[in-house]
């Protein structure tokens, strides 16, 4: 019970924090910054020339599923297995949303 009492105010704080525009900046990496690394290999807005797969017309769920499969090595890859291990579940979900939102 004592633990719950402490827990409730914190949640309230976090909820208020989430609705403020600056709350995310100091603690977690913004999806736009996370996804900025992707275009270096996959091309501007995910349009790839040559062998590296393009990231166009993908739904967020597909990107998320693929990244999680690379990370668990259920799907074989060259570099993506190594890279995806550097991201948390939440970051992968945020990255996937960002990649799916790119304008083509």
């Amino acid at each position, binding site marked *: 019970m004592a633990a719950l009492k402490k827990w409730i105010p914190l949640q309230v704080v976090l909820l208020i924090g989430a609705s403020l525009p600056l709350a995310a900046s100091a603690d977690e990496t913004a999806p736009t*910054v996370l996804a900025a690394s992707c275009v270096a290999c996959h091309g501007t807005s995910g349009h790839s020339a*040559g062998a590296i797969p393009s990231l166009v017309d993908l739904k967020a769920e597909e990107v998320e599923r693929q990244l999680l499969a690379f990370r668990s090595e259920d799907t074989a890859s060259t570099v993506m297995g190594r890279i995806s291990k550097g991201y948390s579940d939440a970051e992968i979900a945020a990255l996937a949303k960002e990649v799916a939102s790119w304008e083509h």
Partner: protein
Amino acid sequence: MNGTFRRREILKFGGAALGTLALPHAGRAQASGRVVVVGAGFGGATCAHTLRRIAPSIEVTLVEQNDSFVTCPFSNAVLGGLAEIGAVTQGFDGLRRDGVKMVIDRVEAIDADSSSVRLAGGGTLPYDRLVLSPGIDIKWGAIEGYDQAAAEMMPHAWKAGPQTVLLRKQLEAMPDGGVVVIAAPANPFRCPPGPYERASLIAHYLKTAKPRSKVIILDAKDNFSKQGLFTAAWEQLYPGLIEWVSFAEGGAVERVDPSTMTIETFFGSQKADVANIIPPQRASLLVDTAGLAAGADWCEVDGTTLESKVVPGIHLLGDAIVAGDMPKSGFSASNQGRVCAHAIAALLDGKPAPSASFINTCYSLVAPDYGISVADVFRVAADGSIKKVDGAGGVSPADAPAQFRAQEAEYARSWYANLTSDIYG
């Protein structure tokens, strides 16, 4: 535990309250101001175009001394006869289309007190934020006898361009049975796997065109980047063609004599038909005009903003900085350019810089159909240094089949096309 929660609450509320006061209008791309970027290599050009894309009201001026940029990535393919120099030469029209104001001139000095840079052509550019991506300078004289005149006989080709073309011509003119010596420096230096990719692609050329020739790498180190992968590939593709002499075996070059094409190490001397001396390096001397290296060879920065630890308002990118665990690579520089652009856009908008996240992915070609890679993810530690994420990253597997190597070679070419087309259009 309770104490930690309280601190977080205070930080959240404190940050939000400050932000609200400082920022009457919320939302994206409100930042304005003048940003001057120096150096149109991977770091500077990426930072300039990223700033224009994420914060169009910021005025971005990019100063570059040459009217095009010859990339070090894939310049080893030019040496191996796999590409022409034009294929690794990037123009700036794409940057101009993005609204970057290009100034082709040399920066003579940085005046941090008046927040301006002075151009060799006579002009002065004032800035609100300055970004320097100036690359390296050679430490002339660090190897006895190796000066600018010697580099015309024994090219370093560690800044791509005329030096690359010169070294290629020397390789073409060399008779069959000749000896190519590559002198590799101690760490840290630009592009850690570069000398070994270079040895590989020169060996590829020699194997095809001059099969009785040899490549000798004289190294100032006892180990090098992707070493296991390179060594295994050399045994398979170029048996007996590449000899690597480690520091312990007397590989460190002490002195050169271009008139006799002699390279002296602590243990003896070696005659060369073609000598590629990759000398010790430091941050471009430009940084010294504002004391940014603080007497050292490289500049210290904060990992989140890439802002100098010595002079506020000046950000540094790429090979010139101490980037913690990140290697000195074009890809690293470009990634730092993106992160720096996001930081500057926030700072000019009165907001804190967002948390940084970096990747470095570097391919090396051992042969046209044989590629190997290193890929890592980086975050910023509490002390502001850039640290590799544990449990992620690494090099290509040691036991991969030929198909895997061929795919990575294809990816290497695609990597170059995508990275340069994103940056230069």
